[in-house]
């Protein structure tokens, strides 16, 4: 087994002039195990420390503590050129004076693989990324998407132990980005390469990853599959970052939850100690009322906004002091209009309580 293990790795600010009041950590200690062949994403807003973490794993940035292991080999003090990792950056960063095949074969050349052999490997890899026949061109003759494919080929050709990717598709336009995602997903499964992928795009992370670590403010917030994170976020911060806007503060008392603005009162599923909670309601678990059903709780409000997007309507409903976001089918949405009162049903099995 050669899992990638990140053990309490951390990074502090150079303490010349600590910025007003902020903690001195750029990245608080992170502990992660990424299984061999797993596609693992670090997801978070910019400045949350995910690229810092990636560069420390690569060895390009020196950690202020902690260790990096692959299998039973401690790589903490191994320089990046000896780690046998590969990396794809936000820009393709191809060498402009080298042809495409020389760019792809670069890693192999550094490993002293013979010319014939490495050019053959490069040609094979170019075929995998759909660029066979481009080998003798120069990088500036290729489009941005093609360049990024070459960067991917360059990373994979040397059979790396871990492939590190730092927002590789964020500079591409949306259509191309989707195409590249599919390509990456296919190739990753084909080569069974361990991928550590950094992104701020949750759709991208959700579409690609086996597991995701949500990061924020220089620390790891939650690790899990896309579904676990989206349906069972541990904190409101994770929920908010994943785009869940219906977060109602309130209290649980004797098994009943009351929101602070009293718009919602319901029995709580399962055991929950009394205290302050946040109720997270996904927009998909709200529907327009069509007669009561057991296990559902109704909220009265007014439709404030309706926007159409990709087959669904997104509604903003004012209920008390809360603005609830609901995802309606076209069929449901056609029965209401902006400014009209509406009664919403929330499926409490789908709702989720968090403490902070």
């Amino acid at each position, binding site marked *: 087994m050669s899992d990638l293990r990140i053990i309490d790795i951390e990074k502090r600010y150079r303490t010349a002039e600590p910025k007003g009041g902020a903690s001195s950590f750029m990245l608080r200690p992170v502990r992660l195990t990424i299984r061999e062949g797993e596609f693992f994403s670090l997801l978070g807003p910019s400045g949350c420390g995910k690229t810092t973490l990636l*560069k420390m794993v*690569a*060895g*390009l940035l020196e950690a202020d503590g902690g260790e990096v292991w692959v299998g039973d080999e401690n790589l903490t003090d191994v*320089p*990046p*050129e*000896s*780690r*046998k*990792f*590969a*990396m794809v*950056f936000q*820009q393709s*960063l191809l*060498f*402009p*004076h*080298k042809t495409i095949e020389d760019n792809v074969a*670069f*890693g192999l*050349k*550094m*490993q002293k693989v013979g010319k014939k052999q490495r050019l053959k490997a490069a040609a094979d890899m170019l075929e995998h990324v759909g660029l066979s026949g481009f080998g003798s061109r*120069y*990088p*500036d003759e290729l489009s941005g998407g093609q360049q990024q494919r070459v960067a991917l080929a*360059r990373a994979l050709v*040397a059979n790396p132990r871990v492939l*590190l990717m730092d927002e590789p598709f964020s500079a591409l336009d949306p259509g191309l980005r989707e195409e590249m995602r599919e390509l990456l997903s296919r190739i990753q499964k084909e080569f069974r390469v361990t991928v550590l992928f950094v992104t701020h795009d949750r759709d991208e992370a959700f579409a690609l990853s086996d597991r995701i670590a949500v990061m924020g403010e220089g620390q790891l917030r939650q690790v899990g599959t896309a579904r676990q994170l989206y349906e069972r976020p541990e904190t409101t911060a994770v929920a908010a970052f994943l785009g869940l806007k219906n977060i109602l503060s309130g209290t649980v008392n004797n098994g009943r939850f009351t929101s602070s603005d009293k718009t919602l009162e319901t029995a709580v599923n399962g055991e929950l100690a009394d205290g302050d909670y946040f109720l997270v309601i996904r927009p998909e678990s709200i529907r327009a009322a069509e007669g009561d059903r057991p296990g559902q709780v109704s909220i009265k409000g007014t439709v404030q906004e309706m926007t159409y997007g990709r087959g669904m309507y997104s509604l903003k409903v004012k209920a008390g002091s809360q603005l609830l976001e609901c995802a309606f089918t076209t069929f449901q949405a056609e029965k209401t209009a902006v400014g009209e009162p509406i009664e919403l049903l929330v499926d409490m099995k789908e709702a989720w309580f968090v403490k902070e």
Partner: protein
Amino acid sequence: MWQKTKPYLLLLPAAATIILLFFGGIFDGLLKSFGYFPAIGETGFSVAAYDRLLSSSSFWESMALTLRVAALSSLLSAIIGAFIAVALFFLNDSIERTSPKPWHRLFQLPLTIPHLVAGYIMVLLFMQSGFLSRLLAAMGWIDEITDFPVLVNDPFGWGIIFAYAWKEAPFVTLMLYPVLSRIHGSWREVSRVFGAGHWQFIREIVVPVMMPAWAIATFIVFVFTFSAFEVPYLLGVTYPSVLPVYSYQLYTSGTLSDRPEALAVNVILAAITILLGLVAYYFSKRWNVLKGWG
């Protein structure tokens, strides 16, 4: 009409001066080298001057010396200049970006000094009775100042070569540094991740990237040292002398009838320079100097 011609009219005095002095001078020299010299009553054209020149051994000795001095000076400047450029590049990488760069200023210093002054500095420092030899003698490293090797006014031309190397190396650096600074900071990271150590990075990325600019800078130094006058005049020996000095000697010390020969030397120098320029242009095209830079 006025609006369109105005800029050209404004340029006319400057342009006319340049054309008259530059091309006029060249044309006059060309005519005289072919024996057209009304002042001494010669109005016919002949290649006699070239004939005499090409069959004289002192011309060929001058030519050999000139080529040797130019080649060694440009080679030395190229090596030293590239070394400084690469050193500055890595130095810049490792120190804080915001701090001032006194290093750069230091290496730019020789650029501000005229060639004549550089020549005198060489004389003062490296002559047998110069600063360095007296310093070494005072420290007891050499017994007498005459033990110091003849580096100035030596027949091989070391004095000239050193002066040029010192003077032109910063020029090569100046030409290379902007090219090196186009090397993406992240390329170092990329190459490290893919297994390239420090030297491999220099060999694979830095050298190929700076090669075209390097070759061109070296070529410019070569052409300049090939046809420059003052440093060899100051630091060379009377015989053999480099071609420009040889031409000057012929022009001033001989009779009026020697002047066509002196001017023929200049025409040959100009022709060789133009030829070298064309060769360099051809190669820079073939290499596609900026291939891949977009």
